[in-house]
């Protein structure tokens, strides 16, 4: 799946900060294979640094095993879609209107294939996304080579 604009955690969170912490938004972030951990760490760091907010990070497997709704004590939630769960995605789609009703930001992080499945299977959610981006870990090398 190509064509989505690349973005770094820094730039994404700067954009969220611009819109304001109470401006609800849902993003789908597509990461390369094997980069999810790095991206997640960068995102968490940027959220704390730029937004100064508590952040809740979970995988869909964890969400499902707890069978609990999202906690309401953080304004930013990062959900990593670590495996394809059609029922959960269906439920997210049906309840998409309620996901960020409290004015929070919800970031879905998925690898390419899962992201494509999500976009296809969840039209209500897709229509409510503030953005879909290819997210890449921050390049801290300054462009140099070792």
């Amino acid at each position, binding site marked *: *799946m190509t*064509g*989505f*604009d690349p973005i770094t955690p820094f*730039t994404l969170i*700067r*954009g969220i900060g*611009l*819109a*304001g912490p109470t*401006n*609800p*938004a*849902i993003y789908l972030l597509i990461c390369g294979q094997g980069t999810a951990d790095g991206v997640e760490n960068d995102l968490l760091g940027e959220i704390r640094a730029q937004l100064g907010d508590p952040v809740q990070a979970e995988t869909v497997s964890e969400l499902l095993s707890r069978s609990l709704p999202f906690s309401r004590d953080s304004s930013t939630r990062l959900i990593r879609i670590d495996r394809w769960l059609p*029922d959960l995605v*269906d*439920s997210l*789609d*049906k*309840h*998409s*209107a*309620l996901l*960020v*009703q409290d*004015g929070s930001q919800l970031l879905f992080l998925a690898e390419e294939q899962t*992201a*494509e*499945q999500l*976009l*296809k*299977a969840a*039209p*209500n959610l*897709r*229509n*409510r*996304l*503030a*953005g*879909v981006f290819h997210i890449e870990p921050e390049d801290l090398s300054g462009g140099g080579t070792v």
Partner: protein
Amino acid sequence: MDPIQTPETPVFDRRLIYRPFLERLNPIASIGTVVRQGLIVTPGNDPRDPAQPPIHEAFASAAEIQPGVQMALVGGIGSGKTTELLLTRERLKRYPDAVNLLIEAAEFTDFSQANPGAMLAAIGLRLFARYCENFGEPPEEMAAAYKRLRELGLGKTEWYGHDYSGEPSDDYGTRVDVPGLMKPRFAELKGEVGKVADLLGAIALPFLEHGNQVTVIVDGLDRLIDPARFRELAEQDLRAVRGMKVSVILAAPLLLWYDRGRFLQDYFDIVKHIPAASVDPKESTFLREILKRRGAGDLMSAASVNEICQFSGGVLRDLLSLAQAAAQNAYREAEDRITRKHVQAAIRQLGNRYLAGIGGAERYRIRRLQEDSRFDIEDSNSRQLLVNRQVLEYSKKGRDYFRVHPALAKLLAPA
């Protein structure tokens, strides 16, 4: 010479330009906030028939003069159904005796199964709460009906073997949960619909005896998508409400509009459809007015506004998404105005979303629609394209037709 920077020199903060604009453009902002900020552009007429009053006006008038009328609103994702329902509720407030309930379907269903009776129960519980809010202490019969409805729906907890004498005791008895017919969000009520309807009737009666005009607006059932499931969920409940003088307005799935069984048209007293809005400025200025109301004119040229309108395809949420994405693109590039390249990037981003998941079968149908204007709504792939908004439905002078979403068409066009 460069100006001298001192700590007192005001620092230019670009966020102050974009932040209010982005807040006004948020396509998923709470609809209540949007109304409070005066950002709603009220449609001037029925989108399918310019000679008819706007949908919210037609719905409100019908509820006022025909108590018990049942109405349905269909439209694709992001077409503005929730806004119309909210406008209807606002219109209904013109009479002080009006009791209007706006219920989100997620309150009474998890959408995973049809659950006849659940909608009635939700209406009953909300009506009771409204009575207490408006009039205070409820009549005895009403309170009893409410209690029974709660028990039926949500279950109850009883303690057996407990010493109720009030004496301290180590024995707290055995807790017995009597499961209700509803889980916290309404589980199985099938087989109890008649009973639930009677209880709802008992709760509604004091309102009707006071001469109140009761209207229930249910949003979100359109997300069921599958027409059969909507029918199953709605049919029994709606039938039970008929004759109660309680008017009902529901958002229904778009595919029901095209259903051969004609359930919508046969069952409901009034059915309204919101097609994608016209993008032709000669036909309608509706889309431009929406962007203007949200301040687009301050940050982009008229040409950019027109381009966003055109590539939204007339889908209202896409209109706002495009303007929002264009603004974010401009901010990221540290520019003070939104230019054509930012709009173009936003259009490409939107088109890519619609492109995801499109396979050979869908491409074939899209090509056929583009080349020969052929689109078979009975075909399952075509219906999926319509539900997913990759294909949009329009109406002009009573004639319905389909077009590929322009943001997607632009991506698919040969370079």
